[in-house]
């Protein structure tokens, strides 16, 4: 990783767990340009001609490969918009590790907006991991506004792990999914906000085919003066099942708004939502203190476990 700065390398490790170049396919974007790329026999990555971004083609029946597409930024005052399209062939079973890390030591805002579209072929399975992270002590804000669109063909399944634990000042994360017959979507969001941070998550899920299902669950911790808004709308247009849940721990002066919306447009749609927001349960703190932890250590254990 000769071309990458130390800050960029640190970010890569945090968001994608990379300490060296991975073995399989990858595309690393740094400060708005391509830093490194590697393709494999089954996974091809090409730059878009008309706008910034890449096309990722995963051949049908590709099994067990992982593709990394992290974005890192350490220049203050830059706005980066990137369009990435994923074409996942029928019957493939792959993991995609995305994520964005911003290190901003300067006085100007740094912003990255990733527009991702997934076209998931019949019977394919995708695990998508997206990690957001900010560091640096500059006054400039670290802003991320990703939009993800997922089009799932029959019997495909998509698992999304959306994580933002630290350092992102402002984010609006929008995820839209459309599911055909027998398709399955599982979303696990984990979010922690602190300071004056502002985080909004919007999930719009349309269950269009019989036998499709979605399970969209967010666990979050809001500390200090931060604000979170969670909107999850599931539309059931067929014989389908949908579940969405927001489970938030509230601390200090934080505020959390949960807006679950269910729209059943078919008699056989079964949709459920749950939302629970509250401070850490007193009996949980007490139990851990009886095991010898201080109140602060107990709090940390509970939060770490909750977000693990």
């Amino acid at each position, binding site marked *: 990783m000769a071309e990458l700065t130390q800050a960029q390398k640190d970010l890569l490790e945090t968001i994608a767990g990379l300490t060296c170049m991975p073995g399989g396919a990858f595309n690393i974007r740094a400060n708005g340009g391509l830093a490194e790329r590697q393709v494999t026999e089954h996974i091809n990555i090409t730059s878009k001609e008309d706008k910034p971004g890449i096309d990722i083609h995963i051949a049908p029946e590709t099994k067990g490969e992982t593709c990394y597409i992290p974005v890192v930024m350490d220049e203050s005052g830059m706005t980066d918009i990137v369009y990435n399209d994923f074409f996942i062939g029928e019957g493939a079973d792959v993991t995609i590790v995305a994520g964005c890390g911003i290190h901003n030591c300067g006085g100007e805002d740094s912003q990255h907006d990733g527009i991702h579209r997934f076209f998931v072929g019949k019977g394919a399975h995708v695990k998508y991991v997206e990690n957001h992270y900010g560091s640096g002590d500059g006054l400039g804000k670290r802003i991320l506004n990703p939009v993800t669109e997922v089009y799932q063909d029959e019997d495909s399944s998509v698992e999304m792990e959306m994580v933002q634990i630290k350092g992102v000042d402002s984010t609006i994360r929008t995820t839209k999914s459309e599911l055909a017959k027998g398709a399955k979507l599982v979303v696990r969001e984990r979010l922690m906000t602190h300071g004056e941070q502002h985080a909004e998550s919007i999930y719009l899920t349309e269950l269009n085919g019989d036998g499709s299902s979605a399970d969209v669950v967010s*666990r979050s911790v809001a500390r200090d003066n931060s604000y979170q808004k969670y909107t999850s709308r599931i539309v059931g247009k067929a014989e389908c099942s949908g579940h969405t849940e927001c489970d938030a721990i509230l601390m200090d002066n934080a505020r959390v708004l949960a807006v679950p919306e269910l729209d059943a447009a078919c008699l056989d749609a079964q949709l459920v939502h749950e939302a629970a927001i509250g401070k850490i349960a007193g009996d949980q703190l007490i139990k851990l203190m009886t*095991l010898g932890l201080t109140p602060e250590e107990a709090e940390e254990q509970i939060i770490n476990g909750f977000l693990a």
Partner: protein
Amino acid sequence: MLELKNIVFDVTEEDGSVKRIIDGVSLRLDENKFYVVTGPNGGGKSTLARIIMGIEKPTSGQILLDGVDITDKSITERAKMGISFALQQPVRFKGIKVHDLINIASGKDLGTVEACEYLSAVGLCARDYIDREVNASLSGGELKRIEIATVLARGTKLSVFDEPEAGIDLWSFQNLIHIFETMREEIKGTILIISHQERILNIADEIIMIADGKITKTGKKEDMMIDIIGASLEGGICSRMNIPEGGRN
């Protein structure tokens, strides 16, 4: 090793009236002995245990541990000084694993093998449980056993168990008794168990009867049976005491 001096605990009810829950309890627990606290429901047993652990602060009175006044010490301080407590109603945690809880309890990072020993001791097939979350997916009995395992893992000089047998099936019950017996041999500490079970009363060095917030009697089981039956009849819960018709042999 533990001394309670004239402990009183009052709560203020919603209408502003004061209700006395613990009414002047004085008690001395000696080292390396096995005590069982029993008595009717609502008598104040759990409250007393919570006062010993520091979860509730007494309205008046004094608590000494090995001669040190711990009345104003926090839960954490008491835990570090060597008191453990298995709750009557164990707590569930989203995301904290059984292994994590046992690590916290033992105060070190145990390997899977070591951590599993504590689970096996409470009759759980360790491999199936060690990586499970201590959440709503565990049954009441499973949770109760994990609670006991955390106290075993702590291995402190004073261990308090609040109705450890509740929700535990008959087969495991025998093992539970065995756990207390080995604990006693290995830790050489003081064990205080709140229980309604005759078989637990059987292994006590001393039984302490609590009713209406007061100690009504202490002594060996033989001296206590009449009182125990009397108290439980008053409470209308004879069956919970597990006493066959016609009393004990």
